């Protein structure tokens, strides 16, 4: 590996000019403007931004921020805090372990984009700038000032590479563009965070609880956004806010602390997820919650196959289908030809076993193939499943699955006398049907997470990764490649089948059209793979977050309509260009894709 000496080492030597910002304002002025502007933006959210409540969220009230104003308030508050931290205000040092400047830039940028998006949305929706109240103008000006001030903060400019005098005009242009891009990136870069102090473990656990609570609040807010503008604003604020926290080094600190208490973090995350239905007053968003959870669980199962063992499976949704159909057939549904009604535990076993058998049957012949060929064959098997189910309707084939009508009116589950189909009141909270299934699904997710974590960090998990890395070398190390791959395939299939058994009951009906390769509604094979890749291969949190985003974005942004898949494709291309390791990168993959990063190439904890 060639280690390249970049500008960072040369910049330490006294440069001719002191570091400057992107904008020619003196740094102290810029810092003051950025902090003051952000504070002003916070104040302005308490004013009215528009005169009519025709714009959703009711931004007409003085003294009570609503809708998008809350997001600007959060962004502005974050920016103000980072601004104060950059002054070295006592007690705020913990906010920015890696330096507050870059974080301030991201926070002001996020506030600016959210505020201006709001102002422009008001103007467009209601037809003209006249619809803005003074508060609207104020927030626009304040966030713009804050952004300009933040951009004036000094940073270390990268040294330009020398020109080749023989270069043609185009080569020179790309060279300059490359340098400008490097400068822009340097402007938003931050140093490496100082290591986190050793805290008493109960304090660290409290911090973990706070982090999880924050995550729950953010998720609940996102899932509960009622209109397009608010969800877009939420995505902008959350994205930039996360970047700002990342640049400030807080994310690095948080991951260090959670890494020390992995079991507590995982259990805490499940408790936090279980709290979600209690934050809801009706079943509307619990529905979304349970669908997200099904999608995420299946994606996590796929992550064993794709992320750990490196087997590109493009027909994975078929295993979900097998589990769902198996559970539906024994559920006592009137359209099932078997007419049996198994208790839930037996249905789960049947579903998981059916998927296991199906997985082994498909895996045994196909896993002798490598790479692209495996992908093509699994894609084919996924479609074969759907077509076979479509045709076993009594006319084209034996009457098993009721063809394209599917198996309808699947009865609700009753577990130990607890009817999941009806509403329950627990400690004053109303827990509806979907919330009941949410809890059940959470249990399945916990099983999948447990299997993923434990198998990943073991002899078999290492064999999977070794096969992914270099199959020939793995064979030469005594790993029975076919057997190990078949285990990965079968485990992945079984976990998907497990999720399928619950899905059948949640959706009342299973039809072949739910299990496509690609469609507009997740889960389908393409979206599952996208969730894994988007979130981060080989991690647990990655597919969960990827699945949540991939489910919520099409669901919330109805205005995208027919352009949904186009936007989705564009977003994937951009992501692969700028963050190929996914949103929550496995440490391993991050090192793989970003060799220039000067992070010490040490993995502290093996596995995911």
């Amino acid at each position, binding site marked *: 590996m060639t280690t390249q000496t970049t500008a960072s080492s040369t910049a330490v030597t006294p440069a001719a000019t002191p570091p400057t910002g992107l904008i020619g304002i003196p740094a102290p002025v810029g810092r003051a403007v950025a902090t003051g502007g952000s504070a002003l933006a916070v104040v302005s959210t308490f004013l009215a931004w528009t005169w009519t409540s025709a714009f959703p969220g009711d931004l007409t009230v003085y003294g009570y921020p609503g809708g998008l104003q809350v997001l600007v308030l959060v962004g502005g508050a974050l920016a103000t805090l980072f601004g104060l931290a950059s002054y070295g205000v006592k007690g705020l040092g913990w906010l920015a372990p890696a330096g507050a400047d870059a974080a301030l830039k991201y926070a002001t940028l996020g506030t600016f984009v959210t505020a201006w998006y709001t102002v422009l949305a008001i103007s467009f929706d209601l037809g003209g700038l006249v619809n803005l109240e003074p508060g609207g103008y104020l927030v626009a000006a304040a966030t713009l000032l804050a952004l300009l001030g933040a951009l004036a903060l000094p940073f270390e400019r990268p040294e330009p590479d020398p020109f080749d005098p023989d270069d043609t005009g185009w080569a020179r242009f790309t060279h300059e563009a490359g340098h400008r891009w490097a400068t822009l990136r340097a402007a938003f870069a931050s140093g490496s965070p100082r290591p986190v102090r050793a805290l008493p473990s109960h304090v660290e656990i409290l911090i973990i609880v706070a982090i999880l609570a924050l995550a729950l609040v953010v998720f609940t807010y996102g899932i509960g956004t009622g209109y397009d503008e608010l969800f877009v604003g939420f995505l902008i604020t959350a994205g930039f806010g996360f970047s700002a926290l990342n640049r400030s080094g807080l994310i690095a600190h948080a991951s260090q602390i959670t890494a020390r208490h992995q079991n507590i973090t995982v259990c805490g995350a499940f408790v936090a997820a279980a709290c979600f239905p209690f934050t809801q007053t009706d079943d509307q968003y619990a529905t979304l919650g349970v669908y997200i959870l099904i999608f995420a669980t299946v994606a996590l199962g796929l992550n064993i196959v794709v992320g750990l063992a490196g087997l590109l499976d493009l027909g994975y949704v078929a295993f979900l289908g097998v589990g769902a159909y198996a559970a539906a057939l024994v559920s006592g549904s009137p359209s099932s030809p078997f007419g049996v009604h198994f208790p839930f535990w037996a249905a789960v076993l049947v579903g998981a076993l059916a998927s296991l058998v199906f997985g082994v049957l498909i895996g045994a012949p196909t896993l002798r193939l490598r790479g692209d060929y495996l992908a093509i064959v699994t894609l084919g098997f996924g479609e074969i499943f759907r077509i076979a189910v479509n045709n076993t309707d009594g006319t084209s084939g034996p009457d098993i699955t009721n063809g394209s009508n599917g198996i309808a009116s699947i009865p609700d589950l009753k577990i130990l006398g607890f009817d999941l189909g009806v509403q329950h009141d627990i400690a004053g909270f109303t827990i509806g049907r979907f919330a009941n299934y949410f809890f059940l699904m959470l249990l399945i997710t916990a099983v999948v997470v447990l299997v993923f974590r*434990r198998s990943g960090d*073991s002899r078999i998990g290492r064999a999977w*990764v070794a096969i992914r890395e270099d199959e*020939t070398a793995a*064979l*030469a190390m005594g*790993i029975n490649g076919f057997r190990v791959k078949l285990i990965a395939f079968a485990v992945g299939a079984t976990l998907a089948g497990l999720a399928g058994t619950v899905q059948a009951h949640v959706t009342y009906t299973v039809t072949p059209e739910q299990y496509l390769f690609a469609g507009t509604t997740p889960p389908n094979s393409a979206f599952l793979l996208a969730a894994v890749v988007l979130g981060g291969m080989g991690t647990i949190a990655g597919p969960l977050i990827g699945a949540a985003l991939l489910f919520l974005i099409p669901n919330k942004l109805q205005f995208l309509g027919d352009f949904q898949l186009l936007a989705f494709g564009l977003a994937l291309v951009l992501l692969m260009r700028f963050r190929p390791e996914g949103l929550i990168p496995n440490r391993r993959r991050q090192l793989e894709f970003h060799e220039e990063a000067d992070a010490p190439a040490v993995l502290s904890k093996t596995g995911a």
Partner: protein
Amino acid sequence: MTTDTTTKDTAAGAPAPGDTVLDARGVTMRFGGLTAVRDVDLTVRSGEIVGLIGPNGAGKTTFFNCLTGLYIPTEGEVRYKDKVLPPKSFKVTAAGIARTFQNIRLFANMTVLENVLVGRHTRTKEGFWSAVLRGPGFHKAEAASRERATELLEFVGLADKADHLARNLPYGEQRKLEIARALASEPGLLLLDEPTAGMNPQETRAAEELIFAIRDQGTAVLVIEHDMRFIFNLCDRVAVLVQGQKLIEGDPATVQGDERVIAAYIGEPMENDPGAAEAAEVEAAEAAAEAEAATDAAPGKENDR
């Protein structure tokens, strides 16, 4: 590395070559019409370092692949401790033959320790259920594997880099790691495919000491190499492979002095010594070629665009 250098004279006094570990008889490998290896016999006894040399394309690596189950020999058989080797490379490793590769094939995105742990695969049994249920047996086996892997890393001198990614190690250390990974499967015979390719003299010397240390632990070693000095220092016996056939086998001194070996590597001398006329002819041709190149170069530059 702290292993003491075992040199030739002590090697002679070292445990005398014992039972036959590897016995290849009449190994022939054909790819379509091409015979890469023809009727090669080779034995390796325990406690021995055997070298396999030959010019490029002589079939050394093909022969190696026949030994390790990557190829199934067209004719002949390979026995390891009197058992015919199974035709699958993972079964060969399980039987007790471990190997390294000519072009390093580490698991680049795994840590150094994980690489060695993968090498332990055949000597451990914990399967999927054991990993998920995590009984006491699992923890015990895992701890034992880690301990053994750490020992091996200490043995090759990489213990302080256990948490580094394999891809980030310098070249010489990657070679060492490959050897440690192979040793983790507790082999009776270690096959090294050009272990010093691309190394500087110091690294070569260190590799030599490492191989002696491995031999002293009771593992037989079969090594392919181009570096003659290295191989003649190291090996108890050397076999020469030329165009797929074994030319000669014997102790280093015999092989070194053999005319056919020199001929195979450097080419045969002309039948008569080149006379003055031939020498002058060659010089004239060279001068002409140079002059042509010089005149060509100048206009060539301008047309370059």
